[in-house]
Every structure is written in C-alpha cells, then in structure tokens.
C-alpha cells in the first residue's frame, strides 16, 4: 500500500481481529474454487497471488465484506485506487487495516 499521511490510522487490535474474521469469510468464499492454496490464511495472504482471485472476485469479495462484516457500504475506492491506477493485489492485512481505519 502506498504511504498516505492523510489516511486514517487503523486500530491494531481491531485490525488483527478483522484478519481472523476475513480469513473465515475467505475460507467460505473460496471453498468450492479450483484453487491449490493450502495452509492458514494470515495477514500476509494475497488474494490474487495466493488465493487465485480475478478482478471480478474482488468485486464479489467487497459485496461479501459489506454484507457479512460491515453491514454497510465502505469507501473501497480508497483501498483499490492508488495514483489513478488499480492496485495489482491485496493482502488480507491490507484489507483489515483499511476496514479498521474506516470503521
């Protein structure tokens, strides 16, 4: 994630809790995919490189997060758009930090 001094600072404890919650959500989300990821999902797990996401899956993941965790729309453009470009990948930790900072 690019450094942004104006971005809100995430609460570390909340972010760690969200990592665990996201790991459970992602395990359900990907349970019937043809994906070879094995092991435990953690802060460093990347959704494209490790879990086999495609762009459309990120859109669906945002829906799932808003439906299951935040129960309302979140400003995901702040996470996905950096300097006019869409980020290449996202880790569970980056998503958790974003949610913790914007809740």
């Amino acid at each position: 994630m690019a450094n942004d001094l104006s971005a809100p600072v995430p609460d570390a404890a909340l972010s760690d809790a969200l990592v665990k919650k996201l790991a459970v959500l992602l395990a359900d989300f990907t349970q019937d995919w043809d994906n070879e990821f094995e092991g435990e999902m953690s802060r460093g797990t990347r959704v494209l490189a490790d879990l086999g996401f495609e762009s459309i899956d990120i859109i669906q993941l945002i829906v799932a997060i808003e439906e299951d965790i935040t129960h309302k729309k979140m400003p995901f453009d702040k996470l996905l758009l950096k300097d006019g470009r869409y980020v290449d990948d996202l880790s569970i930790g980056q998503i958790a930090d974003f949610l913790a900072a914007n809740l």
Partner: protein
Amino acid sequence: MTTKTLFIGLDGCTFTVLNEMTRDLPGEGVTMPFLAGLMGKGVRAKLRSTPNPLTPPAWTSIMTGKGPGHHGVFDFIRAEDKGGDVYWTLYDSRDVDSEMIWSIASRAGKKIVALNFPLTAPPPKHTDGSIVPGFIPAKHLRRNSHPQGLFERIKQDVPGFDPKELAWDFDKEKQAMEALSDSDMENWVRYHLPREEQWFNIAEYLLEKDQPDLMAVMFDGTDKIQHQAWQFVDPALIPAERTDFYNRMRAVCREYFANVDRYIERLVTLAGPEAQVFFASDHGFTATVEVLRINAYLEELGYLKWAVNDGSEQAMRREASDFANLDWSQTVAYCRTPSSNGVYIRVAEKPGEPGIPARDYNRFRDKLIEQLKALRNEDGEPVIVDALKREDWFPGAHMKDACDLTLVLRDNGFVSIRNLKPAVVKRPHPIGTHHPDGIFMACGKGVSADGMVARRKIVDVAPTLLHSLGVPVPSDFEGKVAESFFNADWLAQHPVQTGEPTQRSGERQQSEEMDDQEKQQIIEQLQMLGYME
C-alpha cells in the same frame, strides 16, 4: 399445482425472429410449434424498453415497475466520478432503489421462484422463496443463492447440475460484441445450448417440487446469440445463395430456439391449465451497420483527452477495457462505457476542478447536442438521430446518475469508446444490436385471445404480473396493469386493485460514514465471535 403465474423472460427477444420461428418455413418447418400454439390462442404486444434499451436497467424496470430515474440502475458498470479519478465497479441488487416484485409478492404472502434475473445478487432481503441470480460467475453462485442451502439442494437433486456450465463467464461474455471467426461464432452459439438446459433443469425442478405462486425464469441466450448471429436469424438478411456456413449457423440457431420451445412446453404443462403464463423481453433486436467511436469524436470537438499509454502491461489492459481510459484532468464530456450509449458532462464543483462551470451547463449541453447531431457518415447520413436530455427521460431521485445525454443512433447501435479514427466506420457485415421494442405476451385462464394489441411500456410488466397473482398494485408504481391482456369476464371478477406504496430498498443509499454506535456494534460482534479480546 398451486402456481398462479408463470413468467418466462426471454432476453432480447423480438417478434422479428419469433414470428419466423413460429411459422411454417419452406425446408425448415415450424421451429417453435408449442409457442406458435400459445400465440395463436393468447395475446401479445410490442414492449417499449427503457430509453437506453439495455439489460440491467430494462430488467430492473421489469422487476420494479419503475424507470431507471427511480430504480437507479443505468448500466452494467457503475462509476463514481472522484474528480481526479473515476472508480469503476458493477451494479448489484443493493443499487436497486425500488422494491422488486419478488419481495412485494412475498409481503403479500406469495411464494416466489426467480431464476437468472440480473440485479438479484446479493439476494434481495425479505423474499419468501428461491432466487438463483443471473449474471454471476459460477464461483459466486452458492453464496448468492437464496435461501441458504438452495445451491446444495440443487446440486444434490438436479441431475447433471454444473454451475460452470450454467453461470455467467465474463471472459466468454465479452465475445458477444467481438469480431469472431466462423468457427468461434458457431462455438459461441453452441456454448449457450447447455447453459439454457441447465437453467431449464433448475426451473423444472423448483416448479415441480416447490409449486411457487409466482414462478419466474429468464433465458438469456436469445440476446447473446442474436448479437453474434443476427444475420442468420433476421429474415431481411437471408442471402440469395446460402453457403454451407450459413446453413450450419442457421441450423444451430434454430436448435437453440427449438430447445427453448421444449422448455416452454414443459414449464407451461407443469404449471397447468389454471395458471396464467407471461413472456417478456427487456428489449428487441435489429441490425447495426456502422460503428460510432464517440470518444474519438468528442476528442475532435476538444472535449476530452486520452490517458497516456506508457506501453506497460497494465496500461494495455486498461486501454482494452470497456470503460473509458481518459486524462480526467482535461476531460469535460465523455462516454463511460459502450453500453451506456451516452455522454456525461463534467461540472466543476469548485474552481480549479475539471469540468465546466455549473452556470454554463445548459449552454454547453445545447451546443453539444447540435454538434452531435451534425455528425455525418461517409454517405452524408446523420449518425446520431437524437440526444435525450436526462431530465426529460429519467425523472426520479436518480436522474443525476443518468448520462447527461443518451444517444439514439440511426441504426440503434451501441457506441464504441476505442481510441481509433475515423469516428464513424461501416461494419464489414451487419451484427445484432438492441431495438427499443421487445415482446410481451400472455396465455392461459382469463387471458384475452385478441392476438396483437397496442404496444405496452416495460414498466407495465410488474403490475401485470402482480395483478395476475392477486396482489394489489403498489400506488407508486409507474407502470399500469395491461388490462388488454385479460378477457372481460376475468377482469370483471378480478378488478385491478391499488395497494400500499412499495417499501424502500436501495441499501447503496446508506452513508459510507460509519457512526460510533455502528462501529461499536461491529467490535462487539467480533468480540462475541472470539476474534477480539
């Protein structure tokens, strides 16, 4: 059987093709004999689509009885102009700011089944019955089916169920609008045969087992096939000499329509003689003969600048995508997506922001309309025959989200947003495009046998289905019951009733700002689940 109303959606279906498929043609016979019989004893009308006749806004109007200005869905892709950037995502059911018939019927105590309708994912809340959404990739079908467990039930009980064969594949869907080789075109049509069979199998299973009051299924292969294979189904384009390829393509298109006829026969037979059966399409189809590269023309007029392509893989991918890739700091008027078929005018909120000053809006727009209508093709014909102002065509709370100008091209084509010159070129051969007139048909007990009647509006489908179900029509619906679809005796026994207004939907309208109480609730939930001390 307790099913009162069977609704079969046929995406992009048009009488131009349906009339051919239901009559006896030399050497071919009748491709859809069962539907021909139904049409012979029922009623039908052309159905005028939404101002931009496109799948997401049009099906949403069918499901809500309201136009896009009220329900808020205008395209496949939803864009948020952030000044320096435009954030792109897809519309989903939470963007639909009007209640759908699925929950209106459920609130009235009716059980529903809705299969393959767009904008039904995530599943609308407060629905009694089953929803398997359309336009959702196989990987996400389980989580988006309603109720929980439905996907597993279908997997277990429907022989041959294969979500990959059934569901929307984004990479494949892109082919609908691409130039394909002969063999790819034939494969494209063949790809839809098992897809529709999968949807039919689920529809047959749920109709037979659950016997919902309202059974609704949408078949979308009609649209996809007609985009690529229009020249093989339009009677006006039959060549004097039929090549082997033409005959093969014609045969596989007819196979598709014959299959749909078989599905209709089985579903209508299962629903039984007491049911009323309705068919509708979101728009019709016709031929487009030229390409308008609208952003190239707007660049010529000095209203936009293309983004700099640095040659990187990401830049190339972005350039090839179906959403505009522009230098937003120097763009004041542009088209976002080919499917939007419209032009957005950027208005500067503050001095220094890109866009025109708000006070200049009307003058700027009037001048732009003149310039758009002045565009001619190489034969000197006008390319853009109308430019619809949003306040005239999209009244409602979401009018501001509509294109400032929705374009109507002389051949009903969709624009291209590619960075190519010239701005207008002829296509090598006609391909299919959406026509504003789709179909609306009915048959069954109490239905009129008047044949073709006066054209209806797309917003009339929802109130007509609710009336057939015995549910009062919400007072805030835009559409009216198609009374001409019912016979006098049945209407006398079942007068149209107006009920309470719809309940607000549109979760997207909620603020992105989270208050302290909401944040605390989430923290407590995380603590309760053991994720947090």
